Every structure is written in C-alpha cells, then in structure tokens.
C-alpha cells in the first residue's frame, strides 16, 4: 500500500524516520483532496443535468438550509482540517525537536555551493556524509543571501539565513546517495546549487571519518566525490580558540572556571544558566549563538548587560568554531558527555 501510494504520487524513496512518519498523512490528505474535488465537481455536473431548465421562464423557489445541514457544512470541513493539523503539527514538533545526542555538522551556504564541516575538522564541499541510524543535526548559516537545504528523500527542508543559525535534524534509515537541493531562490545559478547526501553504514562512516581526521584521502566505495577535499590539521576547536583570542573574548570571559566580567566558558556548554529575569535555560548551541549575536536577550544573573553584539562581525564559520571551542572546554567533573560526538 505504502509503495503503491508513493509511486502514484511520484514521491521519492523514504530514507529517513521523518519521511516514514510524514508520508502517511500525505496520502490521507491528498486522497481526501482528490475525492472532495471530484465529488464536488461531479455533484455540480449531476445538478447541471438533473435540474436543467425544462420550460420557459421556469420559476424556482428559495431553498433554505435546515440547521443540521448548516452544522454539517461547517462541522465536517472544520473537523477534517483540524484533524490534519493536529497530526501534522505533532509531526512538525518531531521535526523541530532534535534528540539530545546528535552528530553535529556545520553547513555553510554561499552562492552557489554548500560546505559541510565536522567539528573535528574534516569538511567537504557539495557532499554530506552521514551515518545511517544515528540522528544527525545540521547547524546552518549563509555567507551571502538566503538559501535553503532540501533533501527530498528525507522530506526535510530548512532555510539557511545570513546572520543567524538555523538547525535541521534527521535520522537516515537507508544507505544510499540522495540529492540535496537549494530551494530558496538565490540568484543566477540557484538551480545548480545542488549537493549530495551520502548515507553510509555506521561502521564504514566511522572508518571514513577517522581516515579524514588523520589527513588521509577517503577510501571507501571507490567513487570519490567531486569537490571533496581532505581537511587541514587545524580543526574547529583550535580555530575557535584563535578567533576568540583575536576578537578579545578573553577580556571578559575565562576558560579556567574563574568568574570575570562575564561568565566563564569552562563547563558552560550543557550547564543550566539562570538569567536576570528569573528564567533558566540549558546552554546549547542555539543559546551560545544567540549570546554572540544578541547578548542582551538573556543576561546571566549576577552579570551586567555590557556585551556588544557580534552580529555582522563574526563570519558563519567563526561562530561555529567558537561554539565548538566552548563545547570543548570541560573540566573532569563536568556533567554530561564529552564534547566530541
């Protein structure tokens, strides 16, 4: 049934947990839509025939709707639409809520290419390698205009906006190669800003990943991907350290646990921060990025609102490197797992 409907509607293969989840609703919604349109169209045609004019100046009387019919006319569509919405929204919440442990990959869009960078250093242009069966989270930003990552086989999509980070998570279920498109119009070569997602068996992915980190060329299924390149020794953590020194972050923040003008970065990641307005929040990637771009939004209790925004001063990859650097700063007794995924 699933395959029949999928082929009937020309949907691509289902290669992620979300795809399996969302397609059922898809079949129901499109099926109902087709039936309703045909039903109404046919009812119209039937009336055209049944109630065609028969005599000159035939008179007709006003037909008043009984109350039950009015209730039905309002109630049925409302119920159907709200039911779709309820299911759809719960799926959407699933789509916007990544699990706690994810493999994080930084994505940067620019006219007209995609760059994928792993926190440990390896990076590639145009080809995104992910392990099957593990949740993967993309942390995305753009260097110029708005782009959008779209992986039809995963049924996922998210805009990539300059000046802010957006995230997109998925768990691939099938090993294979799937196209990745840019879906937000971005200029001349918008239609050629394509990429490829390579879903690998987890063990194979780990081997490839270690080989990449060691600086050796990838050896796997024998078809190296165009544009793929081996990373330089410097990884994101070191890059983050360099950037923070350069921008003067250490004037206010320490990395050894001592308080200064701002909160220390040691064990910051994953810690529950208490804010001036009494709210609390776990310091995750979104919070760290927000603190760089919009520091006054959540000021940690006990500190003054004095940090300038770095919106516009930090390039996308630099912000990513800073986040990774902060994530790497862990003392021995720190709660939570290590920085490396």
């Amino acid at each position: 049934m699933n395959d029949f409907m999928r082929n009937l509607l020309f949907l691509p293969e289902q290669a992620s947990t979300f795809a399996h989840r969302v397609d059922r609703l898809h079949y129901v919604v499109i099926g109902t839509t087709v039936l309703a349109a045909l039903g109404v169209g046919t009812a119209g045609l039937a009336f055209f025939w049944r109630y065609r004019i028969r005599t000159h100046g035939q008179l007709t009387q006003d037909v008043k709707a009984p109350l039950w019919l009015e209730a039905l006319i309002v109630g049925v569509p409302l119920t159907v639409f709200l039911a779709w919405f309820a299911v759809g929204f719960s799926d959407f919440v699933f789509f916007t809520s990544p699990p706690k442990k994810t493999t994080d990959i930084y994505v940067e869009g620019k006219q007209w290419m995609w760059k994928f960078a792993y926190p440990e250093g390896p990076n590639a242009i145009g080809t995104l390698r992910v392990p099957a069966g593990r949740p993967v989270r993309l942390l995305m930003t753009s260097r110029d205009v708005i782009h959008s990552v779209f992986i039809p086989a995963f049924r996922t999509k998210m805009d990539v906006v300059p000046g802010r980070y957006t995230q997109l998570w998925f768990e691939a279920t099938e090993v294979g190669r799937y196209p990745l498109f840019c879906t937000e119009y971005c200029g001349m070569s918008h239609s050629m800003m394509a990429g490829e997602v390579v879903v690998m068996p987890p063990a194979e992915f780990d081997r490839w990943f270690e080989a990449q980190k060691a600086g050796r060329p990838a050896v796997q299924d024998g078809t190296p991907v165009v544009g793929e390149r081996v990373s330089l020794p410097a990884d994101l953590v070191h890059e983050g350290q360099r950037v923070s020194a350069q921008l003067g972050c250490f004037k206010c923040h320490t990395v050894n646990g001592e308080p200064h003008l701002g909160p220390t970065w040691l064990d910051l990641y994953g810690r529950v921060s208490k804010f001036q307005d009494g709210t609390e929040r776990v310091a995750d990637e979104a919070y760290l990025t927000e603190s760089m771009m919009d520091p006054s939004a959540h000021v940690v209790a006990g500190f003054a609102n004095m940090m300038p925004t770095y919106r516009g001063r930090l390039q996308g990859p630099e912000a990513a490197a800073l986040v990774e650097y902060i994530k790497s700063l862990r003392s021995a007794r720190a709660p939570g797992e290590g920085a490396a995924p």
Partner: protein
Amino acid sequence: MAETHAHHFPDAGVQRHASLLGMWLFLSTEVLLFAGLFVAYGYYRFLFPGAFAEGSRAMHTWLGLANTVVLIASSFAVALAHHAAGAGRNRTTFWLLVAALAAGVFFLGVKAVEYVEHFRAGELPGKWFTHPGMKAPGISLFYAVYFLATGLHALHVVVGMSLLAWAAVPAWKRRYGPGNVGLVENAGLYWHLVDLVWIFLFPLLYLV
C-alpha cells in the same frame, strides 16, 4: 452660500457624508503605512537597545521639541480655521491657514538643519555611517529607521501643506459658509494626522 453637489449624489448631505468617510478611510491607510515602520522600529529597538539609546541621545532634542510645539500650534490653527469657515468668517480662515502653512515651512526648515548636522557628523544609515564616536552595534540601523521615518513624515508635511494651500483658496474668495466646509475640513483632518504621526515619532526617536 448655496450648497452644490455632484449629480450622482441624491443630496448634499450624502455627498458630505461620502467625502468625510472617504477621508477617514484614507487616513486609516496612512496610519497603516506608518504602522509598518513602527513595527520595524520596535523590532530593531528590541534587538539593539544600546544603539537606539545612543542614537536618540545624539539627537538635538530641543530642535525636535520646537518642531513638536510648532506642529501642535499649527494643528490648533487649522482646527480654528475649520471653525471659522463654518461661521462664514473667511478672512480669519484664510489667515489661520496661512499661519499653519508658515508653521509647516518652519518645521521643514528645522528638519533641514538637523539633516545637515547628521550629514556633517556622518550619522547616516548603512555603509554611509562614518561617525567615529558611536560604536554600538546596530547604530546604522537606528539611522536607517530615523531617515526613513522622518523622510516619509516630511513628505507628508509637504503634501499636507499643499492641501492647506488648496483649502485657503476658497477662503480668499470668501466661499466658505455654514454647511460648506468640506475642503478645509478634509485638509485639516490630513494635517492633524501629520501632526499625530510626529507626536509619536518625536518621543520614539528623540527621547526614549
């Protein structure tokens, strides 16, 4: 003075009702035009409270205050003019409108002085921002909003002044009288709107 009305209206009362309704509807579109601007202002002020505080501190508050007082006075003059027109005192109407026009000229003059100051100091939007002292992030956005808002408002002042001048012509020719004040009434409504928008802009941009 005899009332006249266009042939497609059943009587002058309906015509007056129509023209007032039309004017109020038009004013509502003007309010929405500025509402979009206030949304942008509110959003960016929320993002960059520091920049908006620094920007408004650098404003010549007393110039803005003078303009506010002058505009309110002119609005008062226009209201009096409407009243006088209804009583058939055309001479009074005319001179009150001229006074309001003079106030408009004064307002634009002051605004021009302020703009020149901003240009000198490099307090300009986007990449033109060159003021060496102000460093708050988002400061150039404050000036983008400032120039957009005051520029759009100044355009409305010019349109309002044209309307007042137009409304002064029948006063000069002694045509206004009881029940025949449509033109000065509508021009006045527009001028009150221009005034009202400024009353919102002044504290938002100069005082915060």
